[in-house]
């Protein structure tokens, strides 16, 4: 199941010039479902194999289980649970979930819905009289960061500082020592440090002062799993912030781009607001915010299909490719909001399934629904739009839209 041409395809996928349309390259990649690279790492690109390995208990998310760890800007004393394995992963995720969702806080997301609608409504009001808007800067970017600050309990006046750090950190995620300037990594390291210090200060203030925000609840709660240490709270908040932000920006922006490319669907959405629900699931399949899980580690020898991946190997999971696999989805390159049996890999699968998925869904439902209703005759200014560097968290850096009369 291995081949020598696969490494070249992966290189082309990671190359910036492929960002607007990596899908034909994914199709080439899928000819080798489990492809060994020259450096000994493996790339998995087909749906069945991805779904299988995401449920495989021999796969590790702990960097220490890689035979050759890669450089990272993380620099945290304790990793976030996304980079941990059970049982520690499960324990920390459970403790965070106590304050975010069922079984202990089942009404959080539905309770946030009016707030989400207000924030989106306010942002759209702000550009109501502009002829040309940027979906990213004017809506998709400010929206989730406002929501996460609200959830965590970050004071409004600190939000601008927050945004700068988040931006630097996200830029450093795709750091490639071969092509990127060293400053990119340094900026990321510095921003992470600043953010951690800032969050640490907030957590400190929360001790003994219980309030309704997530940081306060984490700092003061004694559940069946005990209490998180301050370092664990900071890492968790960091994770929710970084993972929950860029992904939502991309989901909304990719969504608007897709709608503008399918004007009949956009028209339908104006008439049938309920369509946004299956439409967002189809977006998560067709233009997902997370294209790649850059690495997982083989904790012991892992069998995928006919391939045995040796212990310690780095495994790259091409989720967006799996969601376009014609062996799983009929006519996979067609955007079909009415698609049934849409078990996409947009949020991953298994124990690491996206923690904030339900919130992201509601953010996307509300943002896309309101945009469809309130933007009159929107037109793309540039197609394709300019993209961010990252092949992992893939999405436009700007999405200029002109509206009627513009």
């Amino acid at each position, binding site marked *: 199941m291995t081949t020598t041409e696969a490494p070249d395809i992966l290189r082309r996928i990671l190359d910036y010039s492929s960002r607007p349309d990596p899908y034909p390259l994914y199709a080439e990649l899928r000819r080798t479902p489990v492809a060994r690279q020259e450096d000994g790492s493996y790339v998995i690109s087909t749906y*069945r194999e991805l779904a*299988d390995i995401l*449920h*495989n*208990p*021999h796969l*590790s998310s*702990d960097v220490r*289980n890689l035979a050759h760890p890669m450089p990272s800007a993380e620099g945290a004393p304790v990793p976030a649970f996304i980079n941990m*394995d*059970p*049982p520690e992963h*499960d324990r920390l995720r459970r403790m965070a979930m106590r304050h975010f969702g069922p079984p202990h806080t089942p009404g959080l997301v539905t309770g946030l819905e009016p707030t989400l609608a207000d924030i989106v409504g306010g942002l759209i009001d702000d550009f109501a009289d502009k002829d040309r808007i940027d979906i990213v800067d004017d809506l998709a970017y400010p929206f989730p960061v406002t929501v996460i600050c609200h959830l965590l309990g970050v004071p409004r006046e600190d939000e601008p500082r927050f945004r700068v750090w988040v931006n630097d950190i996200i830029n450093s995620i795709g750091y490639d020592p071969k092509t990127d300037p060293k400053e990119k990594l340094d900026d990321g390291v510095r921003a992470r440090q600043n953010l951690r210090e800032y969050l640490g200060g907030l957590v400190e203030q929360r001790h003994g002062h219980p309030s309704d925000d997530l940081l306060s609840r984490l700092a003061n709660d004694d559940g069946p799993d005990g209490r998180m240490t301050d370092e664990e709270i900071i890492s968790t908040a960091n994770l929710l912030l970084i993972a929950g932000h860029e992904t939502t920006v991309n989901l909304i922006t990719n969504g608007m781009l897709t709608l503008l490319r399918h004007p009949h669907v956009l028209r339908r959405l104006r008439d049938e607001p309920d369509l946004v629900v299956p439409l967002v699931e189809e977006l998560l399949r067709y233009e997902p915010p997370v294209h790649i899980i850059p690495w997982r580690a083989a*904790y*012991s*020898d*892992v069998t995928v299909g006919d391939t045995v991946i040796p212990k310690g190997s780095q495994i790259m999971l091409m989720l967006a490719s799996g969601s376009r696999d014609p062996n799983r989805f009929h006519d996979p390159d067609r955007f079909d909001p009415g698609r049934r049996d849409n078990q996409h890999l947009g949020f991953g699968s*298994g*124990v690491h399934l996206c923690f904030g998925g339900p919130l992201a869904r509601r953010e996307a439902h509300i943002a896309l629904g309101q945009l469809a209703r309130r933007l009159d005759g929107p037109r793309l200014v540039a197609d394709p739009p300019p993209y961010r560097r990252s092949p992992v968290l893939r999405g436009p850096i700007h999405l200029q839209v002109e509206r009627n009369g513009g």
Partner: protein
Amino acid sequence: MTSADNLRAFRRDGRIVIVGASLAGLRAAECLREEGFTGSLTMIGDELGEPYDRPPLSKQVLTGWVPADGTTLPRRRDIDAEWLLGVPASGLDLATDHVRLADGREVPFDRVLIATGVRARPWFVESEAELDGVFVVRTREHAEGLQRALAAGPSRVLVIGAGFTGSEIASVCRERDIPVTVAELGPYPLVGALGAMIGEVAADMQRAHGVDLRCGVKVTRLEGDAQGRLRRAHFDDGSTVDADVAVVALGGIRNTEWLRGSGLAAGVWGIACDTGCRAMDLNGLITDDVFVAGDVARCPNPVYEYRLISLEHWANAVEQAEIAAHNMIHGQADRWPHLSIPRFWSIQFGVNIKSVGVPTFADEVVVTQGSVSDHRFVAAYGYQGRVTAAVTFNNAKWLDHYRQLIETAAPFPPPCPTPDQPVDTKPVPVDFPGPLLLAQGATVVVTGHDPGERRVTAAHQHHR
């Protein structure tokens, strides 16, 4: 006319009768229409009302959250059927192709699907079973009655039988803060389905939730008062328990009596069929026009050495219904085999218990992931050195991996360590109360994902 013409004519205006209007019957009817059957469709059922779902009856309904008549099954599509409800079928005449109803009517068919399911096994002494406060749970009426009895705040509930249903009912009682005694003939709860090691965990769970669990005892007599209300239960060890509600949870009886004399291989174990859900006659010959699905079907599973297995599992009923429906309107070359690995779940004492495979087809069991004491773990079952089943307690996200191990006849114990390594990784004897199964090695593996491409291939034996 060629057989292809015959088949086309049958699909266009043939007559299909489905006996049993519950989950399997309904899903089969929907599939027949979905796959283009436009002839006449008759649904025969002994209960009145639309098909409803049974698993919630021992859970959401008994907690009082959902009303007993609030579990009607959603429809996948319209089935355009004639419904003959409230009268059971009483006979099947394969010479004239008629189903007889208890009220004397006769319903002709070209092809028939039998999905008559199981009924609750009643308490063995009829007069005691009729005492006020003695319940079984199978139908919505049963659940409604028991729910009302629980809502009235009984002083104590006695659950007779600690299988899945009995354990779920005990869990509901504790959730409602009702004192409960569970009487089980075997050494542990769930032992008959999952073996001694898991049974011990189930016993811990029950006791930790305040259940008065009594294993290795038999209830010999249910005693009523002058008004005919249950007051007390007597055990074979001479002890007694005062209770005003008793739930008899001793499993089910397959509804096959009406097939006596039909010439089909029907009996207490169910109706034997092939993997295409075609019924077998008494001679062991496969019939062409009689199909079986659901709890009443006794179907060979190639993964388990072609043993005839009947399963009272929700997913099995749906999958067999789909296979049977497909095969009823297709020719031999286009038929599908039912090759799913069995899946099951139970919800009790705050724990999600799930299984894949056939845990009773095993000689050893080993904890492969997680912590038994935290009630978060995966246990794999093996037979003669290959994986045949797995059970998860609050670890369902890993279960699909074990399905693959079963389908590929992977070696047991699974050799590779995982990050969530249990304290003890030594396989122990599975220790079922019944006789051990006698067979060797894997003969087959299952391949394919969609029902149309599921196939069995011969396998070489694994060596340890």
